[in-house]
């Protein structure tokens, strides 16, 4: 068995150690005897037809500007994958661009690709610090946020979880992140996956399910270090 991960814009959007998420998926597959191939997508490249997991990380405003056009070009294909239940994780800068638009601090509007019914406007404040959220499906999720964008969810959009500590989507409505089918958008760095192995395994399980047509039974791994690191992070001051 082999899974193919599409890593969107590893050069332009590689701030905050987010590529650790790709590493987390890769290792947890390998440790279970599942092979992984990572396809790094750069502006101008073609998207392969046999992608199993999609990932896009955070970056700074200048990085967003560089990927804006290419993202529109590949949007139809990405949306096909996502509508066909391909698991997908997008963080911070790419999360914002998976919505309708992102209006930057200087008033420029970057068009999104409408995977999520969300809008983002740059706020005056920067929200920085440790975050913990609660999700019915994944339990407590810990991470670190660093953004000034204020994201509002559309009427029928579900958040990833409810904020326990931190600002989340907009520092107002206690929502964090967004969920559409198997696509998750979030502001959480940390990176998010290594310390939240349940979430990592969700992406792997969904990818296998889609590929084989059956619900997979994932081998249990020893998550002592993951859980300890999670517990420490949950107790650190903001």
């Amino acid at each position: 068995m082999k899974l193919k991960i599409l890593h969107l814009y590893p050069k332009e959007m590689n701030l905050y150690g987010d590529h650790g998420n790709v590493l987390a998926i890769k290792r947890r597959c390998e440790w279970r005897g599942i092979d992984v191939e990572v396809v790094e997508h750069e502006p101008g490249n073609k998207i392969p037809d046999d992608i199993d997991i999609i990932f896009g990380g955070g970056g700074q405003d200048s990085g967003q500007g560089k990927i804006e056009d290419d993202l529109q070009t590949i949007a139809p294909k990405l949306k096909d994958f996502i509508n066909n239940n391909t698991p997908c994780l997008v963080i911070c800068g790419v999360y914002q661009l998976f919505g309708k638009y992102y209006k930057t601090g200087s008033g420029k509007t970057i068009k999104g690709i409408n995977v999520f019914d969300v809008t983002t406007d740059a706020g005056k404040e920067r929200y920085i610090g440790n975050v913990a959220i609660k999700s019915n499906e994944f339990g407590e999720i810990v991470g670190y946020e660093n953004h000034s964008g204020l994201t509002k969810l559309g009427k029928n959009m579900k958040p990833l979880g409810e904020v326990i500590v931190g600002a989340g989507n907009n520092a107002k409505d206690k929502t964090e992140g967004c969920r559409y089918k198997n696509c998750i958008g979030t502001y959480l760095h940390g990176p998010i996956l290594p310390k939240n192995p349940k979430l990592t395994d969700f992406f792997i399980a969904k990818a296998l399910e889609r590929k084989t047509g059956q619900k997979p039974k994932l081998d249990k791994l020893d998550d002592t270090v993951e859980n300890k690191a999670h517990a420490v992070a949950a107790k650190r001051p903001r």
Partner: protein
Amino acid sequence: MEKLSIIIGKSIQAISRLRGGGGSALPGLVIERINPKFIKQILSKLPLGVVVISGTNGKTTTTKIISELFEKQGLKVFTNNTGSNFVRGVISAILQNIKITGKFDYDIAVLELDEAHAVKFTEVAPIDYSLLLNVQRDQLDRFGEIDYTASLLQKVADATRKTVVLNREDPRVGKIKAKNIKYYGLSNSLIKKFPSDDDLIVTSNTKSSNKNADVIFERLEGQRATYSIDKKDYTVNLRLKGIYNAYNVAGALALCHTVMPDAKVQRFVDDISTIESAFGRGESFIINGKEVEILLVKNPSAFQLSIASFADDSHDYMIAINDKIADGRDISWLWNVNFNKLDNNIKLVSGIRAYDMALRLKYDNIAVDRIIENLEEAVDAFISDGEKPKRIFATYTAMLEIRKIISGKSIL
């Protein structure tokens, strides 16, 4: 106003010392209020002016190198200890060193300027020369994003009256604009060893910049470094450790050569060989006959370069990660460092975020024998284990704590 400021400032300093205070914060605060031009009034009188060193990595060591090079030329150098409030710290240091008559007996000021204080400082002080080292991912929770940090350094360049010395290989520093620029750089053979921040994960930089540089770091064989200065080669045996410090030397030489163009280059180069590492930055101690080195790691590029310089099979390694404010609360950056070169030689991880470090290593398929959060217990266990010399990578507050623990045990 200037004389009055000196008298008032010195009086407050004396009183707060009598009351048992360290005498550092209050006088700065008062003088800043009553005479905002104080720093300008005093530092403008220095015959060779004011030099500032800024950038993400290497400020402390480079400031030390430059100060010592000037001192060896016979200059009286005024320098600072960086503290939480830069401007007030400089005022206090001036007050401590100025005569009550107003005599400020120095030739030149060499100041380490934290990017966060850069804008404020340019408003209250004259800058004659600046040396801008690099813009790398430091504590993003302090500055937001690295393009913003680059804009702060541009402001330092804008405020510099004579010459700005720039690292031409840094993609952001290399783009800084100024009236008068001198560059230093790397040879093509060394450039691969210096990942820029953009290259940490995806390596693309394989050729040095084509801007003309006055000083080029040509090669490093062991501790023997060769620099090309005005197209002539000079070789020196360094005491400073790590390839990144050898590159900071190139910046220091470019700056010193710019400020004192008539001084003999050979003399600067010879003097470099006597300069030691700064506090906690490659310092070494002897404990129970074993050498223990402490290596400060603040951000991914510094950590990666430190691993490239120091990873070998003849040492045991410990990594200590704290996440206090001075370390940076966000430890995501550990995932931008590749630890494969340390392989089986990491014996122990410690610090507040010991488990995060163990987790990071686990995902590079590196098993760690021991995880001990408490630093004192960890240092004891690490040093007493095995006969190999030891190296400890530590974040800022972990470094301070470890240094304290080790100094208590060390025979110098």
